[in-house]
């Protein structure tokens, strides 16, 4: 692609980064607000902004004999990595930063996020948090491969691992038409990595909040904001990889992209909150034994279509 200049090239590194962070936070806010509105079911919705302010006022508590260094590192890591995954999400037709392996970058950000959440569970030296950490490890391991194959399937059809190329390759036909399985698996696995909705076991009520059970003040803010920002990034990425990015009639590209992203958020939240928790000791086996082969089949179908010249 000739015009793969990045946002950093176009606007300068610092302004571009600030814009992307602002977009990431705004979308994270939207995700949290939607989630709470669905959960409140018509009742009053506690605003995420107010929550953030309250958490900033709150004292950071501690526990007996914590591994404080790793704990704080984990909390900060969740937020930083959620933002890092935004570096390759296209806004309009450009992303903040572009490498020849954007899709793998997104996946790697998730993997490091995985380690950071584990640290959040490990750090406070508390039983509920550690149990949440164990659960997240098992869950992350089981959903990592489906996520990777779902991402790769989109890259396969576009013939490039660059997100902007993937968006450009959908000029004729949105990828969701030929790879619906990859689309669904991508969103589900992203929800699992954000331990949200039916994949909430690492922070579930049955372990008293799990990895988040000992967090207060800034730490709690960082982790919950990181989760929301990451879910937002996944929704925006799903739009770029499977729903044609900013393509659409009448309206300008960025508006279309925003509309689609918010639609994906609404869909994800509504579908996710309809379901009860998928307990990991049952769901993980399905991930290994059913989901991975199904995604591989999806990739095979797409590969055959590529060879047949379907994607041009």
């Amino acid at each position: 692609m000739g015009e793969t200049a990045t946002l950093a090239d176009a606007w300068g590194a610092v302004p571009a980064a600030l814009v992307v962070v602002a977009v990431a936070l705004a979308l994270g806010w939207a995700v949290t607000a939607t989630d709470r509105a669905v959960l409140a079911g018509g009742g009053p919705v506690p605003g995420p902004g107010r929550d953030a302010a309250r958490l900033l006022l709150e004292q950071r508590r501690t526990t007996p004999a914590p591994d404080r260094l790793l704990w704080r590192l984990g909390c900060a890591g969740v937020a930083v990595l959620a933002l890092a995954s935004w570096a390759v999400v296209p806004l309009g037709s450009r992303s903040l930063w572009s490498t020849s392996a954007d899709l793998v970058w997104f996946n790697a950000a998730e993997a490091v996020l995985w380690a950071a959440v584990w640290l959040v569970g490990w750090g406070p030296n508390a039983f509920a948090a550690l149990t949440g950490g164990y659960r997240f490890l098992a869950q992350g391991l089981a959903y990592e491969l489906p996520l990777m194959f779902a991402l790769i399937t989109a890259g396969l059809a576009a013939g490039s691992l660059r997100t902007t190329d993937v968006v450009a390759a959908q000029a004729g036909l949105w990828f969701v038409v030929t790879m619906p399985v990859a689309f669904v698996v991508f969103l589900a696995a992203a929800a699992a990595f954000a331990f949200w909705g039916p994949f909430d076991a690492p922070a579930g009520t049955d372990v008293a909040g799990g990895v988040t059970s000992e967090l207060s003040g800034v730490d709690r803010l960082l982790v919950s904001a990181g989760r929301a920002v990451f879910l937002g990034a996944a929704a925006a990425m799903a739009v770029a990889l499977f729903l044609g990015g900013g393509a659409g009639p009448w309206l300008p590209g960025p508006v279309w992209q925003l509309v689609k992203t918010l639609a994906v958020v609404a869909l994800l939240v509504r579908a996710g909150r309809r379901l009860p928790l998928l307990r990991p000791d049952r769901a993980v086996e399905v991930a290994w034994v059913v989901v991975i082969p199904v995604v591989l089949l999806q990739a095979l179908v797409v590969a055959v279509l590529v060879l047949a010249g379907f994607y041009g």
Partner: protein
Amino acid sequence: MDLTTRLRAWALARPRVLVVDPPGSDPLRWAVEEELDRRGWPRAAVPAGTDVLLVLGEPGPGLAAAVDVLWTQVPAPRHRARLLAGAEVAAALDAARAALLAGGDADRPDPEALLGSGEEDGDEDPGADDGSDEDADEPDGDHGGMDHGGMDHGGMEVAGLPMAQTGPDRDGLELDVLAVSLGPVLPAWPTGLVLRAEVQGDVVTGAELSWTDDPPQAADPDPQRLALDRLARLLEVAGWPAAARDARRARDGLGSADPDRVVAAGALAAALTRRVRRSRTLAWSLRGAGRPADEPGEGVLDLVRDWCAAATGDAPPPAGAPLDALAGRLEGAELGSARLLVAARAPAPVPVGADRG
């Protein structure tokens, strides 16, 4: 009113409330929860996420001691309030928020001093935590088979906490056994119930259930509302917050004086129980939970259905299990299953020690 004060007032306008309900204070808790839901104040699950600690009724001495420890784990700004039966709930909540805004409670101990350092940690009331820190009880398994050569840490203590010991496990690996106590204040569990457990990873290998205090003489609340309340808690532990919210709403509606609301609540309860009974996802997720592979007996899923029947008024609520039998069922269960099973069994309070045989 300067900007900081206003910002503070805005931020703390909807404080998170941790409700401690001693056995027998169910109707009072329902009134509080209804008011919280009406205002959109979140309910806190753990002391770390709490602004207002609201103690209902008259806790017994055991629970009161536990609440004192719980209080040390609540980060500032914070406020601790009591609410006696018959008091005005809305006024009490408003007063709590006002106190929180005024700077919270003056006796603000430094959590570092209370928790971070030293010896007294090990001496905390072992039943008095929320599952957040390790019990000081030594596991009584022998460490005879343990030979770690240069790094034997049997019996060692770090920061006043005992190190875990190893013990046999189902996979043939000598994994560490950790003694923890869950309760007496855990989200969606009967308050005052303590599970002292030995765990390997998240598998419970030894369990003992007890109540902190003798039960009070309490009037029996409406069985249908009680069933809806237990169902709400069970659904919460099962990780279905939207359904749990509907169960709470139906419960609150049934207690209303307005006949229209009662009718609507009955319809909501019917719709909810139909949804829960028919949910394939819930059935799939809970199948096998709380039931050993080859043994007959009611698993969590059967109990969910029993509570559903009771919630529509078609059947009496399932009887609470004796604590010893229930504790026996917990051994070998994954922690989540154990939590579900106790929530589903909803054991009734009995005098302390009466259940030990």
